[in-house]
């Protein structure tokens, strides 16, 4: 058996590993929540985000819709996990699971209404955000939102400032 065959096996393994790699925090750290019956799990696949690519954004009148569509067309996947059971416990637990070497904390807030939120981002070697992760916990709800794709904070801040 020559080294060539061996290299073919290696290439195959590397390619397959690429397909199998976890590109989001939910799979990396929160697997058990997916099977937890307390949780509602929603997934939006690339198929839906592709629809936004074909939209003609310039024609849109609703400014918010335009910005949302603009953000959506660069997205690949969206995962949302929510529960109304023991939200504060899940919040603390979830925050602790994340490896801050991979995910940069952009913001942590606890506001007057006692809602806790943490927003994190994972960037590639060019400093482009490839995943935006939101963890929130209040008295009533816990939510985990993972946006995977190319996330432009520029566009997100347009959305923030648009809503006045």
């Amino acid at each position, binding site marked *: 058996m020559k080294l060539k065959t061996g290299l073919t096996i290696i290439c195959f393994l590397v390619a397959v590993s690429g397909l199998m790699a976890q590109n989001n925090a939910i799979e990396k750290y929160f697997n058990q929540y997916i099977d937890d019956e307390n949780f509602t799990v929603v997934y939006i696949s690339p198929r839906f985000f592709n629809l936004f690519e074909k939209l003609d954004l310039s024609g849109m009148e609703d400014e918010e819709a335009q910005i949302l569509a603009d953000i959506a067309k660069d997205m690949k996947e969206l995962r949302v996990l929510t529960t109304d059971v023991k939200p504060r416990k899940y919040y603390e637990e979830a925050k602790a699971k994340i490896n801050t070497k991979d995910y*940069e*904390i*952009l*913001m*942590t*807030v*606890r*506001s*007057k209404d006692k809602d806790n939120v943490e927003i994190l981002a994972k960037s590639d070697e060019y400093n482009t955000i490839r995943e935006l992760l939101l963890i929130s916990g209040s008295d009533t709800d816990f939510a985990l939102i993972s946006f995977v794709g190319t996330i432009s*904070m*520029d566009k997100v*801040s*347009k959305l*923030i*400032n648009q809503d006045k």
Partner: protein
Amino acid sequence: MAIAIPSFGQTKSIKRFYNKYKHEEHVTNLNLQGWVLKMVATFTDDEDMPKELIRKISHLRILTFEGGNAVTDREYKNLLSDIRKEHFETVITVRDGKEKFHLLIREDDEIITDAVLFVNSPDEFVLLSLEGAFSLKDLKHLNLEIDEADHFEHVKGAL
């Protein structure tokens, strides 16, 4: 002016204090990357916003207590002394009745890398911590008047 890379990093005593109180009742706490603030603040048409200063903030922390101050005098004193041990110096101290205000800064080669403001009164406590690369002029945007001559005299004297 070349921006020096802050060589001190985060302040342990501030972090510790922040983590200790962030879960208290009536507490609002915020931990924010400077560039996120900059991104959002840049789009605002608020003329009063010190954009010059905001540009230079790399990291910001706020801890506020409303409707009561849970920080005892002793804890506050200890905090101030712990902060000073981490190369901070008090540049402004004001007492107005029962309200106390402090401004402490940390420098690296005449560039202010950290600025911490405290408001300590019976029914309110505020900690505002800024990291970045500031000049005295930048801090004046917050109406923080540090007498330049006095200040650098003090620093030189310490060398």
